[in-house]
């Protein structure tokens, strides 16, 4: 059902965990709809130095959260805001089951919420 790349990220998510020194935190989703994702970012001089996540969700949700964190590391917050679901899907080897596309969107939403949180705190 899932590609090798998705399973790799699911089995061994490198960016999973809490980021204690985060200066931006975003959480989206709820248990009623299924998935909950929380993204932590550490921003220095406008650049995302570190990104981590916590996810309650299926394989695709965990893999997509991990991918989002991997992609945005080293990017400016403005570039990170431009991340699309296609970027995440491409990073995961180019395919996600149709029903799981929303997982990649949720990951991006969590990231954007974290950036928004950072900006509000540092305006």
């Amino acid at each position, binding site marked *: *059902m899932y590609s090798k790349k998705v*399973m790799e990220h*699911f*089995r061994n*998510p490198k960016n*999973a*965990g809490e980021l204690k020194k985060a200066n931006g935190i975003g*959480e989206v989703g709820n*248990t*009623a709809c*299924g*998935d*909950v*994702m*929380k993204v932590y970012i550490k921003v220095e001089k406008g650049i995302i130095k570190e990104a981590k*996540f*916590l*996810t*309650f*969700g*299926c*394989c695709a*949700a*965990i893999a997509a959260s991990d991918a989002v964190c991997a992609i945005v590391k080293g990017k400016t917050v403005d570039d990170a805001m431009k991340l699309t679901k296609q970027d995440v899907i491409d990073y995961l080897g180019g395919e996600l089951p149709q*029903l799981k596309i929303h997982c990649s969107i949720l990951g991006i939403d969590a990231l954007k919420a974290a950036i928004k949180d950072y900006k509000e705190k540092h305006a």
Partner: protein
Amino acid sequence: MKKIYLDNGATTMVDPAVVKEMLPFFSDVYGNPSSIHQKGQEAKRYLTEAREDVAKKLNAGYDEIIFTSGGTESDNLAIKGVAYANRDKGNHIITTKIEHPAVLNTCKALEKEGFEIKYLGVDNEGFVILDDLRKAITPKTLLVSIIHGNNEIGTIQPLEKIGNICREHGVMFHTDAVQSFTKVPINAKKVPVDLISMSSHKIHGPKGVGALYVRKGTKMASIQHGGAHEFKLRAGTENVPGIMGFAKAVKLSSDSDAKRIAKLRDRLISGIEKEIHDVKLNGPRGEKRLCNNVNIAFANVEGEALGSYLDVSGICTSTGSACSSHSLEPSHVLLAIGLDKGLANGTLRMTLSRFTTEEEIDYTIGSLKKYVEKLRKISPLKRVLKDVL
């Protein structure tokens, strides 16, 4: 890697003795039981024997057993067959919210044809509330269809009590016994049930074959038209090899196996409850639960993710939520027992068989502990079970 197969509610391994039983019926005893020559009559004799074997398990007459292509067809035939044949008497059917889709969607199809369906709720262990059933029966009620052993949470309904209520009101009673057949004894002479759906591949028989018990005298219509097979209730040349395999699987089943499987089931449940905190068993305990069914919600963990980790380590299970199987909605059965949606999405079903071993159960408990901890570590949810229930 050797697989640990804990998805016997989905399907089972065909017993090697069943395979052996079937083989001659492909290329040796291949006659059509409807043919009048010797080759045909030879097949017919075996077919009759198989029918008697299946009937015996229910203490029924051989002419009360209709072979079908499986559980889904049996459910369709029972419900539509009664509905169409008795339309002059009424248009009301009572079922429950925890039925298998084969019953639920048959009822929904009948709704479009003008039948009225009442979907009864259940209590928090999945039992039908008998008073609700009594109140739901109207003068127009034709049929009550209630699943015997629930496929998701293992609840075994009290057939005799339900059947007695139906009898008092002159209403026919169908039960989907696909999961419970051979695991829970049913004596059709004693229990007032008119139609019983059975399936072969849930009891170590081949796929593509099942049966419907139809009590003698039940007014039924056929829903598939053709020849006069199966007492004119199910047209089509009989699947003789499949039926022989099914009958063999029935003969191989035993009450002592059911007792042994129940012990393993309880070992799995108590192992999980001992090793992992914040878990909830869905459905009842003990004798009112299918001997091979375990269904557990793990707080703050998503079921598909947990099932996938287990799969990677060779353990086949299924999720309580239908999420992994092409729908994002949590299971209708878990919602019907009032389970919180988050917990419903964090539910795993493990279904055992007579081939399950103690070692496999213990290994599964260890793996579950490992992966639930791993997933809880990366979960943003930190809910305590008692706050959710």
